[in-house]
């Protein structure tokens, strides 16, 4: 990216009526509200994650307080990471991308801002409830009814704003990122309301609950995070490399593949369910290899020859890191679905490692890259490049140290668990060293999230000061005397 010369316009205008500057200005408050909320929750999430991570191998750490017991802190960490951090950032970026690609100013920004506040309130209520012992009992759906109503409401308001923006677009042709984002926008309310209705509000009987819980988790992580995250990748990589996306058709394969196969995946092979349910899910999980291949081909075709640019551009490198994490986590997910291997990896540390890589390594990283691109443009204030670089390296190292030892520990655990002659205590002890390294990675991620919070907070602070200064200047300007006006 070259530094602008004195006379070059700050934006390249090649589209219809509304200039990108206006589009950005219309997105400013909603995007900042969502990013700020996400940054705070990310930091909180990494605090919880670190506490939980220490408890893996040091169970005496903060052990005797009910609010901080492992069984409450761990779900709290996941929920704040996913709902508070990932989904908020995703929604913020989605609003901006839809506005830009459609060439229309963000409609109803008030709704989006209100939605962001209500969403944050919902996450807060949910996390407090979880720590106090009010968990609903399902993985990824621990928040009680009142919190999920708030989340649903907040999401709906943001979704209305996004849809209205798309409806009023001036450029009618859809770019692949738009298909992905619109599909995701529609899908989350459906899965969320179904899951909450059938699991929390009026629970269905027996293991049908487990099926629905697994279905919800897969649709939330594989489909929603996958669609929105890949929308971000498919938008920023071609744009910042000043190339076109390699193939629209490969993007189609990714879209339909994720929607069809991703939504059916997620039921473990040996679940206490009639054989047809896990079998269908396994088939879908294996077939999901095809959209993954299409995505990789698309990315490679777009990036070919400009690898060095990708890894040196301050915000694009986050997107690239996230994409690599996506491929690895998708392959890990494939391993968890493969018939011979899934029995080995189920119930081990491999599973949370894959989730962590997907949510943090992939989604948060691509959304961070997007946020670092969007924030300067909606506020007019740059983010310090050195801070971004430090964030990148700390996050990359943190992800590596946090996920890889956990995954390796999971494989060791799985191998030992499958041999009944190995006592359970030995299985536990075999993984302890890897868990300690993983805790180190989580500490680095805490630092990375702190840097992110500082960066975003810094921009907000400067923005606030600038606006304060402007208002002050306007308020204290010497009054125009009748003589001076004449």
């Amino acid at each position: 990216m070259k530094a602008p010369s004195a006379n070059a316009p700050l934006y390249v205008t090649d589209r219809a009526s509304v200039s990108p500057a206006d589009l950005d200005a219309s997105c400013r408050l909603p995007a900042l509200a969502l990013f700020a909320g996400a940054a705070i929750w990310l930091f909180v999430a990494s605090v919880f994650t670190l506490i939980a991570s220490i408890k893996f191998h040091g169970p005496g750490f903060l052990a005797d307080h009910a609010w901080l017991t492992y069984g409450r802190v761990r779900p709290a960490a996941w929920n704040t990471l996913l709902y508070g951090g990932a989904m908020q950032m995703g929604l913020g970026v989605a609003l901006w991308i839809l506005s830009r690609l459609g060439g229309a100013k963000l409609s109803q920004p008030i709704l989006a801002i209100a939605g962001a506040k209500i969403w944050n309130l919902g996450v807060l209520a949910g996390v407090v409830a979880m720590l106090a012992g009010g968990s609903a009992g399902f993985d990824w759906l621990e928040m009680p009814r009142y919190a999920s109503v708030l989340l649903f409401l907040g999401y709906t308001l943001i979704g209305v704003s996004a849809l209205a923006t798309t409806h009023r677009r001036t450029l009618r042709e859809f770019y692949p990122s738009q298909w992905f984002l619109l599909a995701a926008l529609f899908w989350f309310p459906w899965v969320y309301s179904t899951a909450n209705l059938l699991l929390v509000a009026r629970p269905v009987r027996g293991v049908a609950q487990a099926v629905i819980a697994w279905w919800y988790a897969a649709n939330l992580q594989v489909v929603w995070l996958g669609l929105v995250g890949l929308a971000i990748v498919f938008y920023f990589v071609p744009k910042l490399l000043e190339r076109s996306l390699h193939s629209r058709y490969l993007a189609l394969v990714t879209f339909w593949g994720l929607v069809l196969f991703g939504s059916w995946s997620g039921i473990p092979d040996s679940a206490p369910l009639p054989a047809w349910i896990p079998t269908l899910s396994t088939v879908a999980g294996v077939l999901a290899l095809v959209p993954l291949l299409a995505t990789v081909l698309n990315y490679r075709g777009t990036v070919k020859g400009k690898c060095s640019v990708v890894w040196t551009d301050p915000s694009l490198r986050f997107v690239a890191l996230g994409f690599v994490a996506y491929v690895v986590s998708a392959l890990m997910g494939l391993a968890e679905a493969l018939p011979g291997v899934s029995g080995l990896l189920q119930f081990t540390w491999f599973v949370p490692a894959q989730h962590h890589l997907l949510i943090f390594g992939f989604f948060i990283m691509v959304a961070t890259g997007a946020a670092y691109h969007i924030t300067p443009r909606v506020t007019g204030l740059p983010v310090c490049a050195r801070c971004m670089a430090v964030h990148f390296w700390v996050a990359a190292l943190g992800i590596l140290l946090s996920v890889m030892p956990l995954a390796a520990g999971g494989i060791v655990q799985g191998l030992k668990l499958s041999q009944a002659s190995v006592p359970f205590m030995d299985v536990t002890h075999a993984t302890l060293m890897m868990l300690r390294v993983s805790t180190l990675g989580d500490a680095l991620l805490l630092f990375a999230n702190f840097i992110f919070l500082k960066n975003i907070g810094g921009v907000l602070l400067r923005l606030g000061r600038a606006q304060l200064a402007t208002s002050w200047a306007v308020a204290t300007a010497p009054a125009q005397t009748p003589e001076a006006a004449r």
Partner: protein
Amino acid sequence: MTREPANVIAAEPAEPKAGGVTMPMWLVWALAIAGYWGMVYFDSRGGWFNTQVYAPYATLDEVTALQPASDADAFVNWGKVKFKETCELCHGEDGMGKPNQAPPLAGSEWVNGPANRVIRIPLHGLSGPIEVAGKQYNFASSMTAMGAALPAEDLAATLSYIRQAWGNKSPAITTEEVSAVKAATAGRTQPWTVEELKGIQ
């Protein structure tokens, strides 16, 4: 020390466009192969949507066959398994036979009649017209000796099964009875006819 030039907001490139490179053919092949694998996998492990079939069983029949039961029940269950393998194709799962192929076994006086008759039929086959439960049947081809290759106890189990399935209520057939009939009719190769069978008690 000057600040890095990248601390200003760089020029914003244009919105991306989608290129039109066609999908590689091998990806389509990969999808087709994976889809085929998926179908085969579901066929072998899916239990065909039955709620009572759990891994590692593949069909409801497998589960049924392994149910613990009293000795007599175990024998009859075994006979059911053998029936499915050997006789069901022509006589039907419900014992109602198939038109132009085989007469019904349900309510058949040949099944519920003397043991010596019902043992001989699968051992050597049956040809010619036959009346079963008031209806005349005249099949183009005669019944082959489907039970000739079975061990005596399997044939006894199968016959015991059909004699108490679908409403039939006749006593079981023992392995000894089947062995005795086999010994008595050793050397016979012709299928039985109704006249011959009527002469046997």
